[in-house]
């Protein structure tokens, strides 16, 4: 009868992030092992707290099914004597597989010639218990901890010392061993609130028994309880918690039994920008920040915080007071750094960057700032921005890197620079650009809001990318320590957002003139002027690098790979134009793709053979009056003017519509009743090549038909 399996590994406090990862990977690990062991089962649930990692497998079969297995032996010629009796070799083969030699059969074997001796072997399924013990003993050391340790005299390694193992199949203990421990049925409750051993009858008893012992074993339930606790504090305080998913995930895995406790800090610290306070209390203390829920200051940071304690204490006020004391030096430090930073002008902080190395061969951060300023001026000029503003923003963009607050909280780079610039009375376009130019900070972040920020963001990243390729620091395989892929994606997403077809196109008209190849060239020129040699092959590699990232972005938009490749094949440096062509290609049906791909292939083959279709099309060489050649040329002439105009106007929907219109004439040209392009007569052949070349030329400006799938497949 199927039974439920419970495995619990009891240990000292597992780091929160490592616990999350183990919980995520455990189900797939056990599923794969059970499949390999031929043990059917139902639902698998991973459970865990800082002090335990657990697994429940529902409806696990009580034994493996019996197995009938065909085993291939020697060829029939070697296995049976001419009179049909098994040879010595065949008898040995039968014995090895535990079958009667009389039961051996002859059968063909796939991929081999002739017939072979085949035995059908019966393997009796084993009891689940017998299979599971070694399976689990193999699973425990295979758990994916980023760092493991040994303890006492032990050889075994695990994330932290292990103290107990519970392993029950149905109601029976499976005698799993690890690190000198032997599994039993006794778990433990909360370290302080219910420390005694608790005997478990089976998997069903697990979560309820632990809940009674102040342990919420299910991470999802514990997360819900953290949220409920936060809501309780909100209701009691009339304030709102600043929800933070990363922090929520972390604190959920820092406790077995969450209890929210609210604390207060001196409102005088609110002179410091909110981001500093929120970062200080989150990073160092794992506190949630709170904000005003009602009134004029709705949304403003409140001088309160919430900590998620891991136990029920006699007097929560004691815990609150302790946490208030713990956070005070953090906030005092933040305030101290903020005040110290403000004693100097932001530009003055920036001067310290002349002594900070950016990358050994690319000079100091100060030198980088100078290059970015030059490059950004060029970008700004191309999109019509005020040169003084761009220059000022570029000069200040990195200055906060040498401030005290950013030294303490590196993740506030840009944000602090923005505050300091605003407080010093810099123009809004300048102070907004400073935090903005780091955007997008990751895949889920939006590109810069402001124009100056966008220009800076592009210049900053291009300098880094081209510079790194020039000094051979380009990404290899999965290694991209300098984040160049993300940087390139950042540039492209800014261009894609601000150009035609992008979300911000309305207010970004002039941005359409930026082309990636020219930006790369400009970055090269600025680098070379500052003494960094950029080889032509570096530039080529950077172009390919950007093209690869663009392809990825367009695929992420849901476009078809062949549409993207065809569009990029006809030019990609104007990235918005390439995107529109890729999008509009979707309207071309499979038949049309097929005939135009055929034209491309024929012209390619001819070119490879050194046959060039020189000169214009000469209708007098067509094979017959009003034949497919005449009809194709006529059809083409019929649309030629409209087509050229549509290409010039970037009206690709129209271009591809005309392609579809032309498709029947092209198809007829190639059909059975059509003509043979590669005619033995060179004059006829060259004339037909010229015709095809003429027909495809305007379309080849917008798509490379060779990239289209042979069988069509438009979607």
């Amino acid at each position, binding site marked *: 009868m199927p039974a439920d399996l419970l495995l619990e590994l009891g240990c000292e406090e597992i780091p929160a992030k490592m616990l999350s990862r183990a919980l995520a990977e455990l189900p797939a690990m056990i599923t794969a092992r059970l499949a390999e062991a031929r043990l059917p089962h139902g639902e698998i649930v991973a459970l865990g707290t800082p002090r335990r990692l657990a697994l429940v497998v529902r409806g696990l079969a009580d034994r493996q099914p019996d197995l009938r297995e065909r085993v291939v032996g020697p060829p029939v010629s070697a296995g049976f004597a001419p009179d049909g009796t098994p040879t010595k070799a065949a008898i040995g083969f039968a014995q090895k597989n535990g079958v009667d030699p009389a039961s051996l059969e002859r059968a063909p074997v796939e991929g081999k010639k002739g017939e072979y001796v085949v035995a059908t072997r019966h393997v009796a399924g084993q009891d689940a218990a017998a299979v599971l013990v070694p399976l689990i003993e193999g699973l425990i050391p295979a758990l994916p901890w980023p760092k493991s340790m*040994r303890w006492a005299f032990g050889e075994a390694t695990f994330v932290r010392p292990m103290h107990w193992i519970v392993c029950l199949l149905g109601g029976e203990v499976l005698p799993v061993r690890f690190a*000198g421990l*032997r599994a039993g049925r006794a778990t433990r409750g909360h370290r302080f609130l219910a420390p005694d051993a608790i005997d478990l009858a089976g998997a069903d008893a697990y979560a309820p028994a632990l809940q009674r012992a102040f342990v919420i074993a299910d991470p999802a339930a514990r997360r819900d309880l953290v949220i409920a606790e936060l809501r309780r504090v909100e209701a009691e305080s009339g304030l709102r918690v600043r929800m933070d998913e990363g922090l929520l995930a972390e604190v959920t895995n820092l406790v077995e039994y969450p209890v929210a406790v609210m604390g207060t800090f001196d409102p005088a610290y609110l002179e410091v920008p909110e981001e500093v306070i929120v970062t200080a209390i989150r990073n160092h203390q794992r506190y949630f920040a709170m904000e005003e829920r009602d009134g004029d200051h709705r949304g403003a940071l409140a001088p309160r915080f919430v900590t998620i304690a891991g136990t029920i204490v006699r007097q929560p006020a004691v815990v609150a007071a302790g946490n208030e004391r713990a956070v005070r030096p953090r906030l005092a430090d933040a305030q101290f750094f903020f005040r110290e930073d403000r004693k100097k002008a932001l530009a003055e902080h920036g001067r310290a960057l002349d002594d900070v190395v950016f990358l050994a061969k690319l000079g100091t951060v100060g030198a980088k700032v100078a290059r970015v300023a030059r490059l950004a001026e060029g970008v700004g000029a191309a999109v019509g921005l005020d040169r003084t503003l761009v220059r000022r923003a570029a000069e200040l963009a990195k200055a906060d890197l040498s401030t005290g607050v950013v030294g303490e909280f590196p993740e506030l780079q840009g944000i602090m620079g923005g505050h300091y610039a605003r407080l010093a009375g810099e123009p809004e376009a300048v102070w907004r650009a400073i935090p903005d130019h780091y955007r997008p900070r990751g895949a889920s972040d939006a590109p810069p809001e402001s124009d100056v920020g966008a220009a800076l963001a592009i210049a900053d990243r291009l300098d880094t990318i081209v510079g790194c390729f020039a000094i051979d620091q380009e990404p290899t395989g999965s290694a991209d320590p300098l984040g160049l892929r993300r940087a390139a994606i950042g540039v492209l997403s800014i261009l894609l957002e601000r150009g035609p077809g992008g979300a911000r196109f309305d207010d970004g008209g002039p941005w359409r003139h930026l082309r990636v190849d020219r930006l790369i060239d400009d970055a090269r020129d600025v680098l070379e002027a500052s003494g960094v040699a950029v080889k032509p092959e570096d530039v080529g590699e950077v172009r390919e690098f950007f093209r690869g990232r663009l392809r990825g972005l367009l695929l992420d938009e849901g476009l078809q790979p062949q549409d993207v490749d065809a569009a990029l094949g006809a030019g990609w440096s104007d990235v918005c134009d390439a995107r529109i062509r890729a999008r509009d290609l979707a309207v071309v049906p499979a038949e049309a793709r097929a005939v135009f791909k055929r034209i491309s292939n024929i012209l390619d083959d001819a070119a490879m053979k050194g046959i060039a279709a020189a000169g214009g099309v000469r209708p007098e060489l067509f094979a017959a009056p009003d034949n497919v050649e005449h009809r194709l040329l006529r059809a083409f002439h019929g649309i030629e003017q409209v087509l050229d105009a549509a290409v010039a106007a970037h009206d690709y929907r129209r271009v591809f519509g005309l392609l579809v219109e032309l498709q029947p004439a092209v198809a007829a040209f190639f059909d059975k009743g059509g003509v043979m392009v590669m005619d033995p007569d060179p004059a006829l052949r060259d004339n037909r090549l010229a015709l095809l070349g003429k027909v495809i030329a305007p379309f080849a400006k917008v798509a490379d038909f060779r990239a289209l799938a042979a069988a069509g497949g438009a979607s």
Partner: protein
Amino acid sequence: MYLQDLIFRLQSFWAEHGCVVEQPVDVEVGAGTFHPATFLRVLGPEPWNAAFAQFCRRPKDGRYGDNPNRLGAYYQFQVGLKPAPVNVQELYLASLRTIGLDPGAHDIRFVEDDWESPTLGAWGLGWEVWADGMEVTQFTYFQQAGGIDLMPVTAELTYGVERIAMYLQDVDSIFDIRWDKHTTYRQLRHPWEVEYSRYHFEELHAPFYFQLFDTYEAECKRLLGVGLTLPAYEMCMKSSHAFNSLDARGAISVTERQRYIGRVRGLARACAEAYVRSRAALGFPLLAADDGAAAKAAFDGALEAGVNAAALAAARAVAPAAGEAGEVSRAG
């Protein structure tokens, strides 16, 4: 509770639990881990349980006595338990109760914090222990020291006594801590903070310290060459302090910094290896005689593969049989 009572209570607690109460090392160190009672004793197969308060110098953290939370020197109360007992967390929590941090009244948590000392070639896994959001102890299972894999594993508990005292005495500045009934931390320590901040940041003569560093380094190597491991390690500690002083003075650039750390680490590694060899030569005297002989035989037999392999072999020769640990843990 006065600061000195806090130390008294921790000493008594750990003495009752089998620790030798050692005294601080009389050489400048940046952390209790540098004390030979920790750094050297964690090496090799011999058991060792010790507790001591250590004056720790962090020249760079000096603030002229102006900052209520940061000092250029402070005290650590350190406990080393080798091998780490199965119930070491429970023992530690019991020690907190004796100084008034009862888990029934406070939110005590073990929060991941892995420890690494690049100068000592040492690392371990463990936690910072929080009491109501405040870090009160660094709790580490040593995995490696001086580049040598550690077996048995030592648990190192480092109590931040000032932090705990501030909490228990309800004061907001380290300088307001009452040392005893009559004396404050300010009275005892403030002049030192003022003068040493000025010294380290303004007056320290860098060429002199560079020369000191080179001299200590050369002397360490020379002493190792003549088989004087303990004096050699003293030179290693002194070179580390010379480096910390130069670093505080701003005399060492970012790129040079790594080189200096590497030089100290080189000394620490050499001392660690020499120490294990010297203990083996003595027959690992802190083990029972039979075990010491077995460990020494195993060490000598494996020495061809290096000191690291030999130290592991020595430990395995005296390790309790597999399964025993399980019995202990069930009992505990």
